[in-house]
């Protein structure tokens, strides 16, 4: 026989519980002011050919978010920054897909992606939807566009190409062989260097080696480089006048590991760019690292201006303690980017259009005092406007050493240490 009394008591109990819970919630809400959460999505290459950079960026972005939230709490601000990190796998379609997915949930503030190819893929969608995205390492001149949604905390390669060409020239090189990754970034730099080096009086070998950006092994490319160097030697060019420019990301390590099998490739100087400076993949590679030292592999990296109370050491020490390695220059940009976007959100709310308008000013003001990557001034295209480049060399002790600075204004190199 059914007993309706039990059911009634049960319903009453549930009702009381719900009532009690809602009262408690209301009391709590009355006690504490509501804290709004504002989401910032980081599109980092946690896997793929920029994964070391991605790992560094993840650590510095997390650190910056913690610092921002501590500052917001100290100041009694009614909102907190919520950082969401996504892996783009250094793959342009993946980067765009992640951006679309987060935009679908209402997010309009992004940091990253890292590579120019990824930024290019996202640009049209971001422009159409007024999404503010700030890249730490995209340097392709093709993306230097005024009034778009992309801001870049690094200078573009129109500045870097002459730096590489001049460094090679100063090293005594008169014949340059170029090998580069076939993407927006690599193509732009290759074109720039191919134009800049002949202006100094040098010659660029007519057969350049453009490789698939997804490539992870390079026996054929190394074999061709060996053939080309030998071809120049046969033509009577001294080895000291032959140089190789490798425009690569972290695939520099397997590339050099393959090149190490050809003795003549150790005898000519190699040059790299910001994609290879501070590469932990190269530094920790048991074959490619020593090869880079032997081949006097010098890479360019933009030289940040000084900030009054720079957080450079703070960020550097933090990454060292977490990952047990020295971080790269772009990760300092990431730290500054998180702060600058947070300050914009604090000033104009979660409105990406208004934030775009004030970002150059906020960036200038904050980084002038605190910038981990130095003082950042954005030009009319929203890109970093500095023009000097540091020259980094992976020494035989396995440490990255700064050996000179290329001055953009005078197109000269100030050597700190002579290796040629």
């Amino acid at each position, binding site marked *: 026989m059914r007993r309706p009394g039990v059911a009634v008591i049960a319903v009453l109990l549930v009702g009381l519980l719900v009532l009690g819970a809602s009262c408690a919630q209301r009391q709590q809400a009355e006690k504490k002011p509501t804290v709004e959460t504002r989401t910032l999505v980081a599109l980092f290459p946690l*896997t793929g050919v920029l994964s070391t950079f991605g790992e560094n960026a993840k650590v510095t972005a997390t650190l910056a978010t913690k610092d921002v939230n501590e500052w917001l709490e100290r100041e009694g601000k009614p909102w907190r920054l919520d950082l969401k990190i996504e892996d783009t796998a250094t793959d342009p379609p993946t980067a765009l897909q992640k951006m679309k997915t987060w935009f679908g949930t209402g997010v309009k503030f992004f940091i990253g992606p890292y590579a120019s190819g990824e930024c290019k893929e996202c640009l049209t969608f971001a422009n159409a939807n007024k999404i503010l995205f700030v890249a730490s390492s995209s340097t392709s001149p093709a993306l230097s566009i005024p009034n778009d949604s992309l801001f870049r905390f690094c200078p573009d390669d129109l500045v870097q190409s002459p730096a590489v060409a001049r460094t090679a020239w100063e090293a005594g090189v008169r014949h340059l062989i170029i090998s580069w990754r076939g993407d927006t970034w690599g193509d732009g730099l290759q074109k720039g260097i191919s134009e800049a080096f002949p202006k100094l009086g040098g010659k660029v070998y007519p057969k*350049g080696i453009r490789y698939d950006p997804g490539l992870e092994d390079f*026996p054929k490319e190394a074999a061709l480089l060996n053939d080309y160097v030998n071809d120049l030697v046969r033509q009577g060019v001294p080895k000291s006048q032959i140089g190789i420019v490798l425009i690569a990301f972290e*695939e520099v390590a397997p590339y050099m590991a393959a090149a190490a099998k050809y003795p003549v490739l150790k005898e000519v100087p190699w040059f790299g760019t910001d994609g290879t400076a501070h590469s932990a993949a190269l530094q920790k*590679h048991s074959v490619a690292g020593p090869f880079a030292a032997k081949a006097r592999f010098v890479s360019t990296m933009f030289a940040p201006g000084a900030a009054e109370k720079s957080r450079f050491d703070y960020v550097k020490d933090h990454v060292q303690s977490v990952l047990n390695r020295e971080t790269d220059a772009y990760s300092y940009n990431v730290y500054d980017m998180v702060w600058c976007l947070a300050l914009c959100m604090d000033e104009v709310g979660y409105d990406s259009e208004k934030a775009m308008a004030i970002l150059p000013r906020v960036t200038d003001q904050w980084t002038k005092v605190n910038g981990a990557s130095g003082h950042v001034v954005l030009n009319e295209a929203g890109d970093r406007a500095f023009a000097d480049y540091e020259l980094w060399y992976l020494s035989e002790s396995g440490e990255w050493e700064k050996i000179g600075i290329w001055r953009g204004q005078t197109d000269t190199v100030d050597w700190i240490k002579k290796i040629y």
Partner: protein
Amino acid sequence: MAPWLASGLVYASALALTAGGITLLYITTRTFNFAHASMATWGFYVAYTGTVLYGGSPYRYFPLSFLFGSLLGVVCYVGLNRPLLRRRAAEITLMMSTLGYDLVLLSGIQIYCDYLTHTFRLFPRRVTMSSYDAEIFGMSASPLILPLTAILILTVFHLFLAKTKFGISMRATIENPLLAGVSGMNSDKVYLAAWVVGGGMASLGGAFMSMAMTGTPVMGMMTLPFMFAGAILGGLYSLYGGILGGFLVGLAEYGAVYYLAMLGGPWVLGYRMAIPLLIMAIVLLVFPSGLAGLPWGSLPRKLAGAMRGVKS
């Protein structure tokens, strides 16, 4: 030996093993195993972990790679393939189920890489295993050892199929499962054995592969098209054809691309992936049954006849 040829031989041996594994699984269980990609990558990570954490030559850990791949194969068969086969699932369903399994394995690889990075401060996402290689006669051992090992493994496998009772029942089940079942052969055991061997070959192939190319979490995924190309070139229904197909595709990717780039210019490198696939397509156009369809017995006689015809 030219460095590119040395790498090419190692890579071709790796593809022979993996393509053989794909063919074996297809002819036994009608399953195109997409999880071969991550099984191969796991094989590399087993060898890498052993080498960097416990020392010694990578070759010491290759048997472990094989065993781990077998384990992954058993999990795939028991957890996915067998239930689907019992429900008479279509080939496409069987194939897609292995794709899902591959994604799970790939996630596991990424987690494992994070573990190695943060616990042991290693650099597991870009590894050159050849730097741990031994030397024989003043050159790297892998271009000599690995092709020979691949041949040895395949010979043992051939003897197993031809001379042992289980091997013969395996062949019978492959050729006619219905008749084999009526004759009292346990097809479930045969399928399980196929996954043990196929999974093991995939992982061992991955360990081999890492001696020729950079080991990354997506190494298997990047080379999967070539593994399939090898299996298809071999004719899909012949285990030995698959193995030979894998070897030829591997050599074509290194040798043909290098020579074409030398002759035609470095732009050819951009078509690195297309060239072996093009060779596969041409072979299939001429011999629709693949390498297994070639008249191997009468081939020397026919070639000699053709040569005589050319001379006269």
